[in-house]
């Protein structure tokens, strides 16, 4: 068993454990911290695959910005322990089996499609971040500019939603 494989299984166990912890924790702040563990483990997996830039963005944007926003809102709303109310019968009985079926179906279908290209797999590019920048600012420059417009709209929406009624 190579070192890479050991690191992979350690990070995968961390990610799955964090996701399970997200489900079983009753307090939202504990769920948020579990989600941060999942994101850091995924950043490690990206590093393992040689996608350094995506790993850095994952930590900075997901682990940093988005999760800080979540934790901030949880504290702002003073969210307490989640109360148990009776859920719908369909979710209670069929939820777990259907989720298991979805997982196995996804895994089987995606694995089959990735096995098909396994023979033609390249060994990876020399300077991924530089090539990524070339691709992003040449081939994908128009969608890239559109995302800035999307973020502008999101900022406006967040401000309009969060403002007080009396401040007009």
């Amino acid at each position: 068993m190579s070192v890479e494989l050991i690191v992979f299984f350690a990070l995968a166990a961390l990610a799955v454990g964090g996701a399970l912890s997200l489900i079983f924790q009753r307090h939202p702040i504990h769920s948020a911290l579990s989600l941060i563990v999942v994101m850091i483990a995924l950043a490690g997996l990206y590093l393992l695959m040689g996608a350094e830039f995506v790993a850095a963005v994952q930590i900075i944007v997901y682990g940093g910005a988005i999760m800080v926003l979540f934790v901030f809102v949880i504290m702002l709303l003073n969210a307490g322990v989640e109360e148990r109310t009776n859920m719908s019968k369909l979710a209670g009985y069929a939820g777990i089996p259907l989720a298991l079926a979805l997982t196995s179906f996804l895994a089987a279908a995606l694995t089959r499609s990735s096995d098909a290209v396994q023979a033609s797999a390249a060994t990876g590019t020399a300077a991924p971040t530089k090539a990524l920048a070339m691709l992003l600012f040449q081939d994908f420059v128009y969608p890239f500019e559109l995302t800035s417009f999307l973020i502008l709209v999101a900022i406006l929406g967040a401000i309009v939603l969060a403002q007080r009624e009396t401040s007009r």
Partner: protein
Amino acid sequence: MIPAHYFIVLSAILFGLGVVAFIFKRNIISIFMSIELMLNAVNLAFVSFSQTWGQLNGQIFVLFVIVVAAAEAAVGLGIIILIASNRQSLNVERVDLLKL
């Protein structure tokens, strides 16, 4: 070299756990976090396919997904703040105005 389908299976497992969390959590913030978990699982699949094919387009897709997730988090959390101040509760069972 780790086989690509290890990453794919891990991505499917994380997505399934996100679906389970989405179904069983009652707190609206936890439900929103399970959506983020599903987006992360999809990102993992994108990056592993990108490495398998030896092309970088998948990683570009991941960057766009992260941008959309950030925008979604900003707007969604604004909506959550509004719901919390209007309904005095974060439980989704109590937000049932559209229910017959």
